[in-house]
């Protein structure tokens, strides 16, 4: 068993890597993640490593064996609610940040309430109709929030086709825009992770005050 690392030690390590001013911006960001599958679980791990101060994590699913090919869960998590299993993992990376897990289905009715305090929201669902629902709800009802949506990361195409673009007001799109699970048939860890890293990079940039993709 390693000795308990204190808040001060962990914070000093982050500041050493990221710089004092940047770390302060990252600590004060509040980010919502809608969906904790291949995109959301990997985005959450990266944001935790950055030291994002407040993470709201929402999903209505439990971990299944078919998730382990690309999602940040372990065999021992099978059957557990994803928000609970992921929060436990994030606490092991940094126990001094705030995590707010929600095991529920996001709807147009509850999204404004659950993500009310977020300045940045990541859409990380797999269903395109859910992606459209969340986009419409956030852009209509949460005027303070910037939204990052992922679309197009299925199949074994080049990682270089995945980009981040700014398509609407307060709206960034990560993905290749076209590779649909319905057509490509599979989701593979490296390509889904590249898309998740694009989304996490955009969160980082927004938290640091950059608004371009």
């Amino acid at each position: 068993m390693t000795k308990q690392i204190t808040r001060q030690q962990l914070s000093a390590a982050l500041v050493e890597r990221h710089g004092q001013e940047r770390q302060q911006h990252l600590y004060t960001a509040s980010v919502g993640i809608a969906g904790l599958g291949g995109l959301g679980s990997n985005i959450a791990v990266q944001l935790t490593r950055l030291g994002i101060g407040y993470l709201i994590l929402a999903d209505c699913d439990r971990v299944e064996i078919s998730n382990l090919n690309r999602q940040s869960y372990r065999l021992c998590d099978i059957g557990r609610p994803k928000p609970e299993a992921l929060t436990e993992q994030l606490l092991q990376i940094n126990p001094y940040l705030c995590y707010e897990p929600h095991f529920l289905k996001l709807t147009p009715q509850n999204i404004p309430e659950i993500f009310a305090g977020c300045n940045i929201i990541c859409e990380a669902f797999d269903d395109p109709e859910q992606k459209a629902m969340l986009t419409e709800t956030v852009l209509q009802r949460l005027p303070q929030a910037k939204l990052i949506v992922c679309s197009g990361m299925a199949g074994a195409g080049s990682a270089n086709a995945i980009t981040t673009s700014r398509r609407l007001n307060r709206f960034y799109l990560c993905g290749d825009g076209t590779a649909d699970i319905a057509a490509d048939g599979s989701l593979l860890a490296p390509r889904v992770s590249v898309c998740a890293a694009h989304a996490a990079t955009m969160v980082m940039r927004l938290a640091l005050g950059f608004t371009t993709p």
Partner: protein
Amino acid sequence: MQINGQPISTAAGSTLSQLLAQQGFDVARVAVELNGKIICRSDFSKVQLADSDTIEVVQFVGGG
């Protein structure tokens, strides 16, 4: 009228629903901004378009 930066012509008085269908979009999977303002799906059939309109449409694909 412009849609995603491309000039198009459509019949005067067309609704947003008609335009999206004509352009081959799946309305259940899109987000639409009309002149910089997000439009609710439930309003697509009520919004009448004008020649001066600028429309941005993002269509999502599945996977995550």
